[in-house]
């Protein structure tokens, strides 16, 4: 019985990827790792867009949206890395646990 790859499979993959991303964002101490987690979340969203483009009614709009997201992710990575560099200059670390001056 041939396995049909359906929308649900894509969404499933996307959900797993999203969960990994969230896990990475929440648990990683290193700010670079947190950024990588964010990339995972964004990419899980891309998969959703493309899947809905193929199986849903979005058609090429899904692919367009995912390209926008990739562009945005590049920009976001640039800004975020600049912030991380500044944090490193300020605190001599990129460990997000130690950067808790927001507390009080």
């Amino acid at each position, binding site marked *: 019985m041939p396995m049909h790859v359906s929308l649900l499979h894509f969404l499933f993959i996307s959900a797993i990827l999203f969960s990994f991303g969230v896990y990475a964002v929440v648990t990683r101490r290193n700010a670079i790792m947190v950024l990588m987690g964010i990339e995972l979340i964004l990419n899980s969203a891309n998969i959703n867009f493309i899947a809905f483009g193929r199986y849903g009614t979005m058609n090429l709009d899904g692919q367009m949206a995912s390209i926008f997201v990739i562009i945005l992710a590049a920009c976001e990575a640039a800004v975020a890395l600049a912030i991380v560099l500044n944090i490193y200059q300020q605190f001599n670390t990129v460990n997000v646990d130690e950067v*808790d001056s*927001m*507390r009080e």
Partner: protein
Amino acid sequence: MTQELLLQLATVILLLPLLSFLLLIFFGKKLPRQGDVVATSILGLALLTSLGILFAKLIFYHDELLNYTFTWVDFKTVAGIGQLKLDLGIMIDNVTAIMLVIVTLISFLVHLFSTAYMSGDIRYSRYFAYLGFFSFSMLGIVITNNFFMMYVFWELVGISSYLLIGHWYEKKSASDASMKAFIVNRVGDVGMFIGINILWANFHTLTFEGIFSAIASGHIPFDSNPWLTAAGILIFCGAIGKSAQFPLHVWLPDAMEGPTPVSALIHAATMVAAGVYLIARAFPLMTADALVFIAYIGAITAFIAATIAIAQNDIKKVLAYSTVSQLGYMVMGLGVGAYTAGFFHLVTHAAFKAGLFLASGSVIHAMHNALHHQNDHHTDAQDIRNMGGLKKKMPITFWAFVVYTLAISGVPLTSGFLSKDEILAGSLAFGNLTGHTLIPMIGFLVAGLTAFYMFRLVILTFLGDHKDAARFEHLHESPKPMTIPLIVLACLSFFAFYSFNPFGASSGWFFHAVERPMSVVPNAVAAASAQMFEEAVHNVHFMAMYLSLSIAGLGILLAFATYYWKRINADAIAKALSPIHTFLVNKWYFDELYNATVVAGTVGLSRVLAWFDNKVIDGIVNGVASVTRLTSFASGRFDSIVVDGVVNSLAYLTGLFGLVLRKIQTGRVQTYIAFVLFGVMVFFFIYRSV
């Protein structure tokens, strides 16, 4: 002389003694001789001016009333009354003109006498200042034409008598006497004040003219005759106080604590004369009932005082009671309707009573010096039992004293005979007209008593032998400033100054000048008309004269028999009648009676009020205070426990929540993301079925 000039001069006379007072009270000690020359000459000037006014008045304006009125306060239109204004002013009629001379004359002589009598006194200039003030007050009463100024000056007389009687205020008895005089006078003044207010409430004017014309036109207080009688009697109450009538006569004998010249001034021309003058001024509004009341008060006073005078041994006390008695005569005279006679007696009495007091001052002065010379500080210089035989040492004083005594006893050829005889004739006529025969009986009895105690005084003081031969050597006649007033006053005690007929004053200038004013009260309550009264007097005149002469003669004879020839043993009689004698020595126990009733009552009432204040009022105040304290305490406790407790526990709770909640505020972005995810999942869970 125009009328305006006379009125202006009268104002000047009024202000001269005030000037003397102001000069002496402020600059007295800097003036030469402490200012006595200034004061005496100012009064001398006032006397000369007064004489001028009297002559001008009698010659040019004999029957006219010189009047000057001005509006002092204009109340404009007052609701329910209409136009209302308070008029003041002065007036001069013959009575005023005569009184001006009497007051300034006696005051001047007293000033002159005092320059010798008071020399060396510690408050010499102040004494003269007060004399001036006293004269000013009395002159104010004399020249006013309204009850308002009358009352003001009336009170000024009260305060100046207080100052003079209490001149030697270091002496307890003197300060007590001055207070007694003032307070007893206040009692009478309250009545006078009410009387004046009745008149003001009804007539809205206080001038004599305005009130009399209102009554004459039929407008009487509260439309009732009894109110008119009450108004008259209430005004007379002022005279009861000032003229020392029963029952307010008690202050006058005590007032002897003042310097003797002051007694002369108070008892002759000022103060006591004020009361009689007031009755004379208010005479037209007196109803028959009010006049009967006045006559009885006068008669009772005359009798009581004369009986007391018999038993006194202090020379000034005898004279004091004789003053009270003679004032009773005057008041009785006015009361029975013998207006002219009553006022005439005031004038003649002013001269001889001032003389008697000044002569007694001269005697006391001599006695005092003699005692001082002997270093004797125990013998009383005023007790007639320590005197006797002074005739040889003090001839001028003696002869003057004899003249005054003859005058006061009503012996013919003296002024006192003329006035007293007229009063007695008037009272006899009154008795015949109205049936009040008690009044003439008392009148004649008192005439005898007066002659008796006055001659007793003369005999014990001047005749016989002196009690102490050593002291007798040191007695001397007083200096000229003291004897001159005595001589002047002795001259004025003869008949010729008042009437050329020694046996009847009714043809003299005085009776012509001072006529009984027309009564203005309604006919129903008026006393017998002046014409009826004159006829009645005319009928009994000779009878009254013989009666009074024989009674006075009897009194004099009795005095000589008892104290000079010693045919009658006075001590034995006193012993035989010891209850009566003690009663008289103690002055009918009036002081004791008043102490036991009025004074003790006042003190008792004060005690009760003080107790009420201390216990009840203070109790209420303290109770309120402690209730307030208790409430404050409770509310304070409520504040600090309940209100603060709520607030504090809220704060504590907030703090507690804060402590718990701060735990999730980690500052780590990851934690927050975890919370956000948790929240998102919760929302998914909640809205899963929608």
